[in-house]
């Protein structure tokens, strides 16, 4: 007997066939603490062996599950323990980056994350050296992604690290100038980084995680915008929020199904489902389109922050009951270059950096995939990072900056990254200096609401 009615069946088929419902990523989080050797070479070899042996089947299992359920799984990824921690004694960070890249190529995954450091309160000598190694390591590798946590609600913001990151981002853009500064698309600066994030470039395996854990990121902005389109313009906002909740529930249930099945087949622990709505540059797979479906002429118009807040909250409410374990970043992503609607709005002058900053107060994750003029000083990049960190720290949420100072480009130019990374129109940045503020260094003290005990 068919246990479903005709509308249920046709709705599911339509979501998958026409509305871009997919699972964005299956990410296997691996602990590398058991790979620490006496020398960097020994560590690199152990790291390579562990990734190849533990995640060797990730791509084929992902393919099998996608075939069985008929739901595309867009990315297969691995995240690892922050490399700065496993090389504290030996140094030789570049060797580990090369081993990660080689392992990633060998097993055929899309990206590997965890070339990372956690310096939200203080920074050791080796962590400083590690951060200085990032530009070369990312420029010299294909699939390695890097992240640095420079602040948290509990500890405040490490402004010395913020200053350093502005400079390293600038270095990385110059080292990858031939590809428009694309290296910077693989480097993200966090406040309140999460330990179980399946999304790149910011995924790393937190120190509190198990040995091998499957974290899954769902997607489906196209499904949500189609649902709102069907609802029509006359529905009030309670009805809009309800429709988003219902849709998010269904999307997340598919993610949960895939996550549990993947964990079982890979003999790993099931970690979390990340409820983020992640756009792709494909038409119809856009978060901006959802906001416009809610009644905005263009994303970036007054009302954008309110619409995004409604969307973000409703996605969580719908998703949280659909999964046995929700985590990661869980919110709508607003990467400019990866969302056809955002790109259009920037081109039209409807969406500015300042509006994007306001939007990051109510959604995950932050200023993401934004190209700025190549001559933007490092201190301005650091100041942009400081602003985002302040939002994250005060609002007890994750914020991040993934910004690309595009070498030789000016406002109005565009940088083509290709694939899921899309096209970034170069956006204007406030020209006034914050250099004296950034040069002060030191630490922003933890906010009063960090004192919870």
């Amino acid at each position, binding site marked *: *007997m068919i246990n*479903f009615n*005709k509308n*249920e069946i*046709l709705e*599911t*088929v339509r979501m998958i066939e026409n509305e871009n419902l997919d699972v964005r990523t299956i990410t296997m989080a691996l602990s590398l603490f058991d790979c620490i050797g006496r020398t960097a070479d020994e560590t690199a070899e152990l790291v390579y062996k562990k990734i190849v042996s533990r995640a060797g089947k990730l791509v084929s299992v992902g393919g099998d599950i996608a075939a069985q*359920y008929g739901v595309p799984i867009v990315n297969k990824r691995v995240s690892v323990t922050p490399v700065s921690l496993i090389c504290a004694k030996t140094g030789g960070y570049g060797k580990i980056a090369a081993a990660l890249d080689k392992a990633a190529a060998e097993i055929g995954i899309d990206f590997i994350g965890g070339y990372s450091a956690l310096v939200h309160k203080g920074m050791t000598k080796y962590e400083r050296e590690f951060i200085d190694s990032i530009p070369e390591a990312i420029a010299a590798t294909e699939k390695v992604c890097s992240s640095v946590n420079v602040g948290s609600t509990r500890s405040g913001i490490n402004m010395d690290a913020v200053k350093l990151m502005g400079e390293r981002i600038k270095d990385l853009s110059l080292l990858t100038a031939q590809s428009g500064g694309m290296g910077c698309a693989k480097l993200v600066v966090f406040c309140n980084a999460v330990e179980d994030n399946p999304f790149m470039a910011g995924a790393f395996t937190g120190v509190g995680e198990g040995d091998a854990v499957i974290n899954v990121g769902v997607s489906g902005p196209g499904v949500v915008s189609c649902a709102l389109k069907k609802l029509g313009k006359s529905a009030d906002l309670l009805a809009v929020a309800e429709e988003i909740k219902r849709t998010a529930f269904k999307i997340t249930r598919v993610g949960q*199904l895939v996550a549990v099945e993947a964990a079982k087949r890979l003999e790993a622990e099931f970690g979390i489902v990340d409820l983020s709505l992640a756009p792709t540059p494909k038409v119809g797979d856009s978060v901006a389109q959802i906001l416009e479906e809610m009644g905005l002429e263009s994303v970036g118009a007054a009302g954008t922050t309110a619409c995004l807040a409604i969307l973000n909250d409703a996605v969580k409410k719908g998703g949280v009951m659909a999964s046995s374990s929700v985590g990661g970043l869980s919110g709508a992503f607003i990467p400019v270059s990866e969302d056809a609607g955002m790109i259009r709005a920037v081109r039209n002058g409807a969406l500015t950096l300042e509006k994007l900053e306001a939007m990051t107060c109510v959604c995950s994750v932050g200023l993401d995939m934004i190209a700025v003029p190549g001559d933007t000083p490092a201190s301005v990049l650091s100041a942009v990072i400081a602003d985002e960190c302040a939002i994250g720290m005060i609002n007890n949420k994750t914020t991040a900056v993934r910004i690309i100072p595009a070498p030789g480009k000016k406002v109005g130019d565009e940088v083509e990254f290709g694939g899921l990374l899309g096209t970034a129109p170069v956006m204007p940045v406030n020209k006034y200096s914050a250099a004296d503020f950034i040069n002060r260094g030191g630490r922003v003290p933890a906010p009063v609401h960090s004192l919870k005990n």
Partner: protein
Amino acid sequence: MKAVVTVVGKDKSGIIAKVTAYLAEAGVNVEDISQTVLQDYFAMIMLVDTGKASVTDLRKDAERLGKEAGVDISIQHEDIFTAMHRI
């Protein structure tokens, strides 16, 4: 595995015959079938047991068959519908 086959498109004669003949040949057992015609549109839904047939091959053939017949044919695992529509 148990799967749901849907065939949606402009109504014309012989669609059920074509699809079920193909499924029988592929060793797929049809356990339940329902169909409706809404205005000119035809929607057929079948619950099938795919037996030993490869789902990947079935999907490829379904796409080809759909193109020939001018309809959209999809094959989805039953668990997807259970996950989405049943708590």
